[in-house]
């Protein structure tokens, strides 16, 4: 009977083993597998999300850098002039000389614009460029005696005698004042690169300033151009009368070496060009007429010119300008 008890216990243990084994095999293991799969899935998704979160977090830093770069770029975009406007630059630069009381320019010139580009890492040139032009302004001093032409007088060559013996001397002091004004006006973009003083041995000097003016030519510009219109916008000092003509009319050409035109003549002060009778003029015989008549009779130069004009010029152009 003891054997039967043992068998019963063994049977029971067998049943337990079957139950536990069956449970593990049929329930727990599949559940664990499912859990493992779920965990692996979760870990994978979590890793993916962490990676994406890091990207999103990195974007905050990128945005910070973007803002910083943008701010710096806008600052640099406005260092140079937004554009090169030749007449406005010339007006501004010449204005410094007039303000310094040395307005007598002997030359104003500027070069073609030149570009400054940057070579990028791929070997190409940048589309965003700096552009510059060089202005040369040569002004004349005075000798303190002979006044130069009076801009308010339309007859610029006529008052020379009256201007003699004035005591206005213009020279280095005025030039230096003009240089100082230019140098301090817009040092980032307007740079004096050359200065020259040349004594003429005739009681006056020529003064020359060479100025580089820099602007930007930006395809990628972020900011609006600076509101400062100096060097950019022509300062309107009144309506500019139009109606100029093409070609110097013959009435403005006169023979040289003959008696001067009387100051009562309508020709007085209007002649700006010396006639050249050696010049081949197949269809412009007017001055030739004048030349012929000059040697043909005893008329004064003025009489000959007036006569020749009245005979040969169309009515519209025979009227000489009135004073």
């Amino acid at each position, binding site marked *: *009977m*003891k054997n*039967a*008890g043992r068998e*019963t216990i063994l049977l*029971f243990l067998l049943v*337990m083993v079957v*139950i536990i084994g069956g*449970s593990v095999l049929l*329930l*727990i293991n599949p*559940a*664990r597998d*499912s*859990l493992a799969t*779920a965990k692996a*899935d*979760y870990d994978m*998704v979590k890793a*993916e*999300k962490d990676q*994406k979160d890091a*990207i*999103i977090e*990195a*974007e905050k830093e*990128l945005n910070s850098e*973007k803002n910083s*770069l*943008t701010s*710096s*770029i806008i600052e*640099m975009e406005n*260092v140079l002039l937004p554009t090169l406007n030749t007449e406005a630059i010339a007006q501004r630069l010449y204005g410094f000389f007039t303000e310094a009381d040395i307005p007598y320019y002997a030359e104003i010139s500027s070069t073609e614009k030149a570009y*400054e580009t*940057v070579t*990028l*890492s791929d*070997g190409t040139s940048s589309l*965003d460029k*700096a552009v510059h032009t060089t202005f040369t302004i040569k002004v004349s001093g005075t000798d303190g005696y002979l006044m130069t032409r009076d801009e308010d007088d339309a007859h610029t060559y006529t008052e020379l005698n009256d201007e003699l013996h004035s005591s206005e001397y213009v020279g*280095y002091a005025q030039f*230096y004042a003009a*240089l*100082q004004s230019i*140098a301090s006006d817009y*040092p980032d*973009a307007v*740079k004096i*690169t*050359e*200065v*020259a*003083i040349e*004594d003429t*041995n005739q009681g006056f000097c020529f003064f020359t300033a*060479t100025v*580089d003016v820099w602007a*930007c030519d930006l395809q*990628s510009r972020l900011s609006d151009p600076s509101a400062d219109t100096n060097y950019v916008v022509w300062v309107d000092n009144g309506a500019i009368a139009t109606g100029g003509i093409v070609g110097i009319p013959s009435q403005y050409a006169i023979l040289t070496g003959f008696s001067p035109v009387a100051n009562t003549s309508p020709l007085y002060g209007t002649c700006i060009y010396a006639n050249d009778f050696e010049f081949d003029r197949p269809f412009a015989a007017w001055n030739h007429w004048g030349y012929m008549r000059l040697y043909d009779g005893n008329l004064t130069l003025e009489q000959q010119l007036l006569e020749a004009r009245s005979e040969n010029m169309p009515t519209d152009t025979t009227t000489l300008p009135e004073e």
Partner: protein
Amino acid sequence: MSTTQTKRNDFSKKDMNFLSEFSSSNTQVASLIPVFLLVVVIAIAVVVGITAVIKIQEATKTKATKELRDEMNSEEYQEKLSSYDSTTMAVADLRSYHFVLSELDARVKALTVVNPATLNAVVEQLPADTILTGYEEKDGKVIIRGTSLESYSPMNYLETLQSKGIFEFISITEIKPFTPTENSYTPEIMMAVDDYYTFEFVGTLKGSYSVSYSQYIEGETPTSISSVSASVLASGDAYTIPTPLNITYEGANYTLFSITINGVVVNADILAEAKRDEQITGMVDSAKEVKIFYTQSTTEGSEG
């Protein structure tokens, strides 16, 4: 009693004996049956419990996974992600544009300009008997021409110019007495001309020079990774340029590899010093364009 009945009785007895044996002889075993049953129930309960816990965990994980997926698939999240791409591209463009602007800015700053104060200093030092008849200044070079009545005046003038400290060096092109014959002066004119001396000096200004630096990733075509930092310093001034040993660019680590000054690679000693001190220093005697090159860091570092 028949035989059949007898056998049946024996058999019944036998059964009774068996049960009696079972119940009487193994009373203790029989009493364990409820315990066994209880154990079985508990075992089943444990199995069910474990299974339930696992299933709950699985459900939790599945739910969490779904939540993560839902969040990642949400419109807001997708916008943030796509925004990163566009921001990355925008920043790359801005970096390139910023580099171009800073390079142009450095070049314009590096131009040699005329300071009117130099001209004024030259004029202010003129001796009383001296006339300035010519002055030219360009690219830091100055030519001064004049006349003096006294033979010593040009040299006095030279001394006063040097004492102002605005010239690096002045050379005398010439100092000579006026020679009327060279100018075809007639004896009548010569009688009216005072004796004087002409001179010409050529000076080199103690100029200001541009010192600029920028960082690049080493390669066949080096990639700029910084804007160009530039400053204008007077001749003789000291300059300091930072050369960090390690930098991070777009998530990758880089180590200082080499340095060039005006296109010439610095020697090993200077490079070692730059790596140690994380800066290079020097004295300004000309324009300096410093380029600092980096290479991607290896696990053991790439120094050397």
